[in-house]
Structure formats: C-alpha cells, structure tokens
C-alpha cells in the first residue's frame, strides 16, 4: 500500500505544477497551489506513518495547513480587489511553456535518477519528481510577469525543495521544516503587501512598470 499511495501523492505535486503552467486565470492558479500544498502534506503524512515518526506526522499537519490553506488565502486576499483575472502577457506563451515544462521534466529525470539510486529507498526513486517541480517553479518565475504568478513560482520552487527533502531523508526535523515553511509564508506576505502597494500606486500589477525611481 505504501509505494502506490506515495507515488500518487508525489505525482499529484508535479501535476499541480504543470497545472500552474497550464492555467492562466488567477483563481485556478491559487487552487493549484492549494492542492499542491495538500498533496505535499499527504506525502509527509504517508512517509511519517510508514516510518512511525511522530515528528514527521506533525510536520505534515503544519505543511498541509500553511501551504494548503493559509498561503492560498493570503494570495486570494492579495488579488481580491484587483482587476486582474488572468495572466495577460507572459513572456513565453502557454503552449510553448507547456512544451518547455515537458523538457524540464525529462531533464530532471535524466539528471537526478542517480540520487534515487544513492538514497536507495522506494521514496528516493521519486526524487526527480521534486526536482522537476523545482525547475518548473523557476521557469514560472522567469517567464511570468505578474506578481501573483511570480509568487506562485516561488511557492512551486519551495514545494519542490520540500518534496526532495521529504523523499531523500529519513524525516526532516520538525523545527527545520517549520522554519522553512514560515520563511516562505513571510516572503509571500511581504510580496503580497508589495503587490497591493503597486496596485495602489499604479492601478496595475505590472512589475515592468517599475523602471525608474520615484520620490
């Protein structure tokens, strides 16, 4: 039972990352991030139950609550008042982004299968999924221009790192994982405030409008 459920949960994390590249409407982007956070919590929960590790189960609960509910709520708040409904001008259009995402997945699997063999567990074999999520997150950061999409990219990168950590190690210490998660939460809050100030000053969310200094 352990291996198939773990495969499904890690697979869900990657599918959500692809979904974040695929969808352009802000609402479905946020939903993707939310589902991905819950899937990540599920991965930690399955590993925690399998290893009989109470700390990992507690980490799973914290990850699921913060990444599955709190961050999507904050993101939703940041965009609630704005007129922006979808990512309007990505640097790379969606079909090309999807093909690039496919290449990134192949790249991740081609380069990091060795790590899985080195770790040697059933979970270790799934490490490339985490790396692929991370790469897709970086790609979203580069290719999308709206702050909301960039926050989503940041969250994808963080979820990819957390997934690799869960799969590689015999349980991340509770304190470290909660520290990292709260760090990202703080980052998202700051970005959210920045986005709202941007919208207040310029009436728009476009980061490219920030080209010269103001008083």
């Amino acid at each position: 039972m352990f291996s198939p459920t773990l495969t499904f949960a890690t697979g869900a994390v990657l599918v959500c990352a692809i979904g974040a590249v695929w969808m352009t409407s802000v609402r479905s982007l946020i939903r993707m991030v939310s589902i991905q956070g819950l899937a990540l919590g599920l991965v930690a929960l399955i590993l925690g139950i399998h290893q009989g590790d109470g700390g990992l189960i507690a980490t799973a609960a914290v990850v699921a609550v913060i990444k599955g509910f709190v961050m999507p709520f904050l993101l939703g708040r940041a965009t609630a008042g704005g007129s922006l409904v979808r990512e309007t001008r990505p640097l790379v259009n969606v079909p090309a982004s999807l093909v690039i995402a496919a290449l990134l997945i192949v790249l991740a699997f081609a380069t990091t299968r060795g790590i899985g063999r080195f770790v040697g567990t059933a979970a270790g074999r799934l490490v490339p999924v985490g790396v692929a999520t991370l790469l897709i997150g970086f790609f979203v950061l580069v290719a999308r221009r709206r702050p909301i999409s960039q926050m989503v990219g940041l969250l994808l990168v963080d979820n990819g790192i957390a997934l690799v950590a869960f799969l590689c190690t015999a349980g991340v210490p509770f304190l470290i994982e909660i520290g990292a998660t709260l760090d990202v939460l703080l980052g998202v809050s700051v970005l959210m405030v920045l986005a709202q100030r941007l919208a207040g000053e310029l009436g728009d969310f476009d980061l490219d409008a920030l080209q010269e200094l103001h008083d």
Partner: protein
Amino acid sequence: MTEGWPVLSVVAISLLQVIGVAVGGPLLVGLMRKTRCRLEGRLGPPIRQPLLDLRKLIRRERTQPEHASWVFSVAPLVFVSATIPIAAISPLVATHPAFASAADLFAIVFLLLLGSVAIALGALDTGTAFGGMGASRAITIGALSEPALLVAVIALSVPARTSNVPAIVTRSLAHPVWLATPQRLLALVAFLIVIVAESGRLPVDNPGTHLELTMIHEAMTLEYSGSDLALVKAGASMRFAVLLTLFANLFVPWGIATAAGAGHLALGLVSTVAKVAILGVGLSTFEVAVAKLRLFRVPELVAGAFVLSVLAVVSALVVP
C-alpha cells in the same frame, strides 16, 4: 499472433468491427445529440437521424466547384478508407481481429493522420477562404494532438513491452494491477483531450455551428455535397467511434472477447457497445456544461495533453 483463432472467425471479427463502426458511428453521434437535447429539455431528433441523413445525402446529386482538381474528389474517399483499416485491425470487439500483428500503435496513428491530411488537402484544393481557414486550424490542432495521442499510448505500451495495440489490451487484461497506476491516469486524461480535439467536439470545436469565426471541421466540408458530403460525415463519425472504442478498450479492457466463438463475440460486442454508449452520454453531458474555448486557447489545451502524456511516459519508464 492468431494461434488458436480460426482464420474464418478472425475475418468475421474484422468484418463485424468494420460494419459495427460504420453503423455505430452515426448512431453514436445521434445518441450524443439526443442526450444533449434531453438535458436541455428538448425532445430532439431520433437517434438514427444521422443514418437517415447519410441515406438522403447519398441519393443527392454531387456538385463540384468549377476549379477543383482531382484532390477534391479523392479526399473524402481517402478520409473514409484510412479509417476502415483502423476499424478492421484494432481490438474493438475481440483481442484478435484479422492482421492483428499489423495493428501497431504507429500504424494506427499514421492512418489517423493520413485521414486528417487528406481532408485538409481537399479543403485547400478549392481555394475558398473558409476551406483554407478550416484546414489551417485543423492542422494547427492536429500538429499537437496527434503526437499527444502517440505518446499517451506509448505510456501504456511501456509496461506491456510491445507497441502492438491488441497485445497491449491482452496484457493489461492479464495484469489488472497496471490499470490503477499514475501513468495510466495521466495517459487517460491526455487521450480524452485528444479524442475531443481530433473529433471536433465541444470545448475545441462546436459541431452544431456554421459561424465563420469558430468553425474548424465544418469549414473544411462546406464545398462538399451529395455523396461526397455523406462520405465526409460518415468518415468523421467513424473516426470518433473508433477513437472512443480504442479508449474504452485500452483503459477498461474487461468484456472484450478473448476467445473465438459466437458466444464470446456476442458478449464482446454488447460490452463494447455499452462502454462506448456510456462514454458518449458522459461526453455529451460534459458538453452541455462547458462553453467553447476561444480558438487561440485551444493549442494550450492540446499542449497540456501533450505534457501529460510525456509525464505519463517518463513515469512509466521510471516507476516500474
């Protein structure tokens, strides 16, 4: 490939499949129209209406545009005759139709592509604005959806260690564990999107409209009339039926006849018809709930199917 299967029954199976697809395709279209009408609170035409339409069209005179070349009149024939071999050799009713060893995945996708290219060339041949527009749109979508179909079925062929479609179905019947893996789920979603895109169903193309801004398949068939139009319509419904049946048998293979004999064949036929009818009603119900996608967002949808199928192949290779 066909040991234990008498030659006569193998030929009978293929004949049954071709006739079943030729009659069942229009009936499937009629069933989907009926479902849609019922869900919208209308009575709707009878289910056999598309068949009656075909009979009516065959009797009508066929006219040709003045400057059309031979490509125009050959295209509908190629369109239909590229679909017939797929219906004959694919595992639709039984796992061993005639020439089952030729039913390679690449051969089937090649035949599908041959049909699409033929009809697009026929549309381009007359030089009308609509024909060219429809052809360019159909090829734009097909350029993404045909590879997605190929890659999605490759994901299924990796655990079966063969690209022969009947063998894939036989081996998934022998190993039911394969049916519930992540890569199969991904391939399933990709395959469904490809079916919708290839057969011009609702989120991609609206089969009921002739609005120039939106139509894709209908734009290519505007110049055809009489028996040519009947061929095009029959070919389109046959492609749709073949794709849906292949989908049903690849992902839910139970019920397909695995041994020769009238009893097995009857059971296989009934189960296949039931599976395809359920899928058709389901798709039609889904169509009532969605609006047509903007044309420029259709490539996004199909590219998504392509990524999902690539992911399916990668995970099939990595997670045994």
